[in-house]
């Protein structure tokens, strides 16, 4: 499990980005639930932590793709592939993330960069 942040440092309506590779973000919804998903939009290189959090949905800050925080599913295009979800655990006021072992769905430009090709 990776320590993310203290729960008190993550107010409702906010997100915290973990500098893992690829990055993961923890969202604290207005209803008080915690969810972790891949931070990079599957459409293009954008940080979902910078996006618009509403209910259990986050909207990409660039092109308005929407993802369901509970399942990672795409709720609105242009994204077509889901983001991975990760397990969130809170212990002694600390937020931890247990990373998914699935392969991430990274956007074409980021996938190319990670593979060592031209961005």
């Amino acid at each position: 499990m990776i320590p993310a942040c203290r729960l008190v440092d993550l107010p409702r309506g906010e997100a915290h980005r973990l500098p893992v590779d690829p990055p993961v973000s923890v969202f604290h919804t207005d209803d008080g639930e915690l969810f972790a998903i891949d931070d990079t939009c599957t459409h293009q290189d954008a940080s979902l932590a910078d996006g618009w959090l509403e209910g259990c949905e986050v909207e990409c800050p660039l092109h308005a793709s929407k993802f369901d925080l509970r399942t990672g599913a795409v709720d609105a295009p242009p994204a077509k592939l889901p983001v991975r979800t990760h397990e969130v655990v809170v212990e002694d006021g600390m937020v931890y993330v247990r990373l998914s072992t699935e392969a991430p769905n990274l956007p074409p430009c980021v996938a190319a960069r990670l593979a060592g090709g031209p961005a």
Partner: protein
Amino acid sequence: MVGASLAGLSAARSLRQRGYDGRLVVIGDEPHRPYDRPPLSKEFLAGTLGEADLALERDDEDLRAEWVLGVRATGLDLTGRTIRLADGRGMRADGVVIATGAAARTLPGSEGLAGVHVLRTLDDARALREELTRGGRLVVIGGGFIGAEVASTAYALGLDVTVVEAAPTPLAGPLGETMGRIVSALHADHGVRLLCGVGVKGLSGEHRVDAVLLEDGRSVPADLVVVGVGARPCVEWLEGSGVTLDNGVKCGSDGRTNVAGVVAVGDCANWYDPRTKGHRRVEHWTGALERPDTAVATLLAYGATQPGAPRPPYFWSDQYGVKIQFVGHAVGADSVTVEEGAADDRSFLAVYRRAGSPVAVLGMNQPRLFTRWRKQLSAAAA
């Protein structure tokens, strides 16, 4: 569904999500399934995205729709509730969603001259991409968003680029004079020539364009010309049908037309905007994404809905590696102030106000802060 691009697809999705279980026919004049247009002037033109990446439908998606593609609608007969198609067929419909979009305006007299392009469709982008790879001198006519994005992409591909804009300041319409000047300064930052306040008289060349002739007598040599002078709504097919046309299909704030059972969405639809108390035809991607759901709700409820106000219009542009985002209405603002960052750094957030209240926000390379403002502006508008 007449129109098979983002607005038509969004309407089809919305119909199914809202429980419509009947027959659904989507008519499109292009031969392609719905594809994403914004990358056509950026990543697709640059060659970093392929055609498969542009598809808007998911692999696992089944809308149970009949796709009638590559055939244009030529008329709407309201008495028989029939859509006439260019191939002579007629389609009877209980409800009609008009989503026929807009077409690129062309330069009169440029027809038949090789090397002259517009950019609206996938086929336009394929043709332009093919020619851009040969390099040379590109003249972009029109300093709006399409023109600026093509200039930026062509610059990155190594072409010698000149942008010609008839107005004194590019983008002054959507962004206002001050911010239009700042955003269009991106061209000069990268050594792309920007000629403002001068109209185009015509093009020279026998079979292939060789220069753009300006109204002040100058001649700009060109191997390739892109005409980016806006788009006109594709509504000729509705003339005389009884559907009221006025800068596109004239609609209420929920997409309803003057005819029951007929709604209009996307670039061809001129919706009433309760915020500005006037009709406004919005050509933004996000409008084509979000508004069809409202229109479909109207259609399914036979007009008996009370829609919430649509979100303030939002669009983005990518130029020279800079993310430009804008939400709201610049027209009517009495002030605009940079509230974060600095214009000279090409990283800032500017807020437009009218009588002290925010009415629009512009961001350059500020997605996080911009999104907060967009959310705030939408909440204020709701």
